[in-house]
């Protein structure tokens, strides 16, 4: 589950991780009030207004149809008013959103972190994630902050440092020091950094993060280390023990169809193709998508119905897939092991009759327990449903349907 910057920063503050502070606002009025509050607290006329969407590249991204960037500096209450008016309700397109962009429902009015002071400001990069191969968490960091880290890793791999952390243990003190030294810090900034990364690692583990990225990690002109931006992704499997974090879920950021599918325990991912599919098991579902492509179609979705393919789930699946007007055919591919194929077939027939008019070909491939009885049931139903037992037959039927 992804969190917004303002949500992630609030969680980090509970772990004593310093952040660029601010106020999340949903209206222009709130934003202006937030500005007055902030400029009073900082004794500065500068503040930053940041669009809150679940995608990176906001600073360079633009609101659809305008030249308005997703992150802007304000020098007055009037500035904030103008920026907030431009951002709120607009559709922000960044390199990560795709051409559809994302609607900005919230903005974060934040303190200016780039104020002047006795030393030079610096931007670094730091993230914590799982190293799958080692089965350990790794802190990845670089002196090249504020940039696309994949580019840094590709062009100058020597500028990326990594610290693997002993499972079950906190980030070791020597590792925290090593990070601060490698970032070239000294004095107060060094001390501040050591504390920052130690607390950040604790937050990563305690919150069951799947990924935690601070870019830029920032050294202020008065030698404080703070998180100017934060991307936090929580391990979905661990949400059961974080009801407070789960409550932060922003459904507006997610695909409405995927959210609805979730209510039926269907694992659905929307794609752009013309052949829908409904499959039991994630691996077989991906393989079925691949097969659709090889048969001349393009998969319209990923849909894993899990271990219980019954009339209710099949009907929900059909309805969700049929909402996509690009879909020209649907392939149901079930390998019945514990699930009996004849029951699934009955579910398909019932669902079909409940929905009424389905104007596109449905191909049902049922293999496994009672496959023959299932084929029989489908064929005698009188519905416009083609049935198959072997995967090859199903592929041939898809080919016929899309050609």
């Amino acid at each position: 589950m992804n969190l917004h910057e303002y949500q992630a920063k609030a969680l980090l503050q509970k772990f004593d991780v310093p952040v660029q502070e601010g106020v999340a606002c949903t209206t222009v009025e709130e934003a202006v009030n937030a500005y007055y509050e902030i400029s009073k607290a900082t004794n500065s006329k500068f503040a930053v207004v940041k669009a809150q969407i679940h995608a990176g590249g906001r600073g360079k991204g633009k609101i659809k149809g305008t030249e308005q960037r997703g992150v802007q500096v304000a020098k007055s209450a009037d500035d904030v008013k103008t920026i907030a008016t431009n951002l709120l309700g607009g559709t922000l397109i960044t390199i990560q959103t795709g051409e559809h962009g994302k609607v900005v429902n919230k903005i974060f009015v934040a303190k200016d972190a780039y104020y002047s002071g006795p030393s030079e400001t610096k931007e670094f990069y730091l993230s914590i994630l799982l190293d799958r191969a080692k089965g350990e968490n790794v802190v990845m960091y670089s002196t090249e902050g504020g940039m696309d880290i994949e580019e840094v890793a590709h062009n100058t791999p020597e500028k990326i440092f990594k610290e693997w952390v002993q499972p079950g243990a906190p980030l070791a003190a020597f590792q925290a020091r090593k990070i601060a030294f490698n970032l070239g810090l000294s004095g107060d900034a060094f001390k501040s950094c050591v504390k920052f990364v130690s607390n950040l690692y604790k937050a990563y583990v305690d919150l069951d993060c799947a990924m935690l990225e601070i870019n830029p990690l920032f050294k202020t002109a008065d030698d404080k280390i703070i998180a100017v931006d934060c991307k936090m992704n929580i391990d979905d499997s661990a949400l059961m023990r974080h009801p407070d974090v789960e409550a932060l879920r922003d459904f507006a950021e997610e695909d409405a169809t995927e959210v609805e599918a979730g209510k039926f325990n269907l694992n659905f991912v929307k794609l752009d193709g013309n052949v829908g599919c409904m499959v039991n098991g994630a691996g077989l579902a991906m393989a079925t998508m691949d097969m659709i492509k090889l048969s001349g179609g393009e998969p319209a979705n990923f849909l894993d119905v899990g271990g219980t393919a019954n009339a209710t789930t099949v009907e929900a699946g059909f309805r969700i897939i049929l909402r996509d007007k690009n879909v020209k055919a649907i392939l149901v591919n079930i390998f019945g092991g514990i699930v009996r194929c004849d029951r699934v077939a009955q579910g398909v027939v019932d669902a079909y009759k409940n929905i009424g008019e389905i104007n596109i070909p449905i191909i049902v491939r049922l293999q496994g327990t009672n496959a023959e009885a299932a084929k029989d049931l489908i064929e005698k139903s009188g519905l416009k449903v083609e049935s198959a037992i072997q995967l090859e037959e199903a592929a041939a039927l898809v080919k016929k349907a899309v050609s």
Partner: protein
Amino acid sequence: MSVLVNKNSKIVVQGFTGKEGSFHAEQMIAYGTNVVGGVTPGKGGTTHLDRPVFNTVADAVKTAGANVSIIFVPPAFAADGIMEAADAGIELIVCITEGIPVQDMVKAKNYLVGRKARLIGPNCPGVITTDEAKVGIMPGFIFKKGTVGIVSKSGTLTYEAADQVAKAGLGVTTAIGIGGDPIIGTTTKEAVELLMNDPETKGIVMIGEIGGGMEAEAARWIKANGTKPVVGFIAGQTAPPGRRMGHAGAIVGGADDTAAAKMKIMRECGITVVDSPADIGKTMAKVLNK
């Protein structure tokens, strides 16, 4: 000969009296698997499915001589179940549970270091040695005795492969479902190595998917050490980057863990890679009859 489990394996079921545990333990027993008992804390001393129930895995090891465990414990407690089994001296732990928090698995996997237990899974269909032992949730009837070993990250694709192999006139020695989570106990390479060393296994089906680097590691090992033909398939050629496709581990993170990248490496390492999942069985028959 066989790999990991056989008719002499003594299996204990963790989460024995729960809904999932009961259902699948019954199916395992019906298959002829030597289930010697189960564990449900607090229900020790009772019997279930005509088998003794123990409070701890240690009791099951001491009293019933269990050496293999299968775990059906809910996700929040499953990593603890893995550590308990390892601590009790179990040699093979098969964890079926899906949805274990990743940080729990980081700890559990580390706990296994230096202990003799091998972990299969989690989030897997288990292990089956045809006609000897079914330590998992796969439908037993699709597995016909034969000479092909199967290694797969996916449950239903394992069944698909076993079925196609049977239709092609071949059969299965042992099928190992290694699981689709980011952290799993036994890697593709380790499972392939076990089958490569099994004299009964003449050919290997290796099924992977997007995400992680395990297939590439296995492919390189096969190139250096392989002695038997391997047929490979990678699910997710059409998966968009950055999206999780059902399995927690099935996500394309970079250029190296796409299906295309994995298939290329596998082909370069001498594996016969099929594009379509419908071609697994007949391709295996073709390479074995060369």
